[in-house]
């Protein structure tokens, strides 16, 4: 077979190719966002941008970029908090308390998370319309909470399950009721898992498009994904501004991924392996 050096070289090559292709589109857009109008359409493509912030400026002034950012932050943030609270309660109950049908409940959560969005979109839209909650923050947050609950519950429940049974016994004997056991003992110890769940929920809500598109039809309430998808130019697509908007939309996520990659990985696989 190939000798060791050739094997190592091959491995390095494959790794570099993987990294390059994974980051190429993102880097290209990032570069594009720092170009001038001329540089965007130049052939051959300009590899090193002039560092101009024009597109960011016009994005903010003409295309309301900051508005989208604000909406995304509020919606993703609130969804994460609400889902976390509800998921902590449910995750604790499913992982530690003696309940009937636990498997069924967890299983059906999984099944529900696989429903195609279109199958529930129409009725959800109708419900929100009758409540007058189309084009409102709560109108999107409520479906988002529903969509992220299965993920949150599965991850948090699997972290709770890891904690030794005896800790709860000790807490009960030391005088804790169920809620106190949850808040004083179980939650601090499952904090890493809860934090991971928070990251994943935030990423999901930040990126969601389908429901955001349907429920937020007014510019004032639209989130970043909707804004970016619906970018219209006068004659051609304003690629520069799209690139700028995309960079703003993705830089926080890329940072999150680089800093918390270990947690994210363990969170995602927690559902798969331990389930």
């Amino acid at each position, binding site marked *: 077979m190939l000798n060791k050096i050739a094997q190592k070289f091959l491995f390095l090559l494959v790794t570099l190719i993987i990294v390059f292709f994974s980051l190429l589109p993102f880097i290209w857009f990032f570069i594009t966002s720092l170009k001038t109008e001329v540089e965007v359409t130049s052939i051959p493509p300009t590899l090193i941008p002039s560092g101009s912030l024009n597109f960011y400026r016009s994005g903010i002034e003409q295309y309301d970029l900051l508005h989208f950012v604000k909406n995304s932050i509020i919606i993703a943030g609130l969804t994460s908090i609400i889902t976390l609270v509800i998921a902590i309660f449910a995750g604790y109950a499913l992982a530690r308390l003696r309940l009937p049908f636990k498997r069924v409940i967890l299983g059906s959560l999984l099944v529900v998370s696989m429903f195609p969005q279109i199958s*529930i979109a129409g009725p959800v839209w109708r419900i929100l319309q009758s409540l007058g909650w189309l084009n409102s923050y709560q109108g999107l947050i409520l479906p988002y909470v529903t969509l992220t609950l299965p993920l949150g519950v599965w991850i948090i429940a699997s972290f709770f399950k890891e904690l030794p049974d005896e800790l709860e016994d000790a807490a009960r004997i030391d005088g804790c009721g169920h809620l106190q056991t949850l808040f004083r003992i179980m939650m601090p110890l499952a904090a890493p898992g809860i934090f991971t769940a928070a990251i994943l929920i935030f990423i999901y809500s930040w990126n969601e498009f389908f429901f955001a598109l349907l429920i937020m039809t007014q510019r004032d309430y639209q989130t970043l994904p909707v804004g970016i998808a619906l970018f219209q130019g006068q004659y051609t697509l304003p690629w520069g501004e799209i690139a700028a908007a995309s960079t703003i939309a993705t830089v926080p996520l890329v940072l999150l991924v680089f800093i918390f990659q270990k947690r994210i990985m363990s969170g995602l696989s927690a559902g798969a392996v331990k389930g």
Partner: protein
Amino acid sequence: MILSLQERERAFGLILIIPTFLFVAIFSLYPIIYSFYLSFHRIILGLPGLGQKFVGFQNYIDLFHDRIALHSMFNTLIFVFISTSCEIILGLLIALVIHQKFKGRGVVRAAVLVPWAIPTVVASQMWRFLFNDKYGLINFAFFGSDINHYRAWLADPFFAFCAIIFADVWKTSSFAALLILAGLQTIPDELYKAAKIDGASGWQRFTHITLPLVKPALLIALLFRTMDALRIFDLVFVMTQGGPADSTNVLQFYGYKKIFAEGLMGYGSTISVFVFLITLIISIFYIKAIGSRLIEDKI
């Protein structure tokens, strides 16, 4: 009423689950049922005066005859098959790379996660730009500065479809890789060492140890990816809007158009029910196949 310890625990547990149950019931279960209900009616949003006429199975009959619907189902299934296969294979490759211990492993891991982490619509715009017929990088990569030969990739039915597959594989192979990686990490190192001592080559170790033991993870990744691929929407919406000539029309996009663009809530619901049933059947099939496989592997 004095409850026993066990009853108290049960009651407390049920209370904790109620919020979750409420959300799921109101925003998932009820809508599904309501979609079924709507599919038996003729409703046109924007013309409330027509009311909600009950039409029985008429919508379903129309669906059968709807060429575009059948075409979009066809497109969807082909897309699912091709992209999922690619993602599993690529995912396995990426997982094998990340599984090795080397310096800079964290950077590689993070880089691989970036496609997963960014919004799909952003990814769609990125690839749209790369496939651009005037100044896209891909045209430049193939034809250099020879503008006359540049193709309008997204305006060609075949290439548009390929572009969508390509973008989806780029976006989600890392997710498949993560799931498979979790499976790889459960294989004890000693097995490889023992095989090495027994004289097995690298390829033999891969086919006889790695592949069989990573099968459960592969199947789980397959399940998740299939379910997600059936729901593809964002890529189509941004990159092709279902075109050109319905070549990239997929089920969820078609349903979206019917309900929200054309306001045909009744007929659109029929499509959405149809999508739901397909998803349900495939998932049951999968769970049955995987379930028995997983049990087999454990024995």
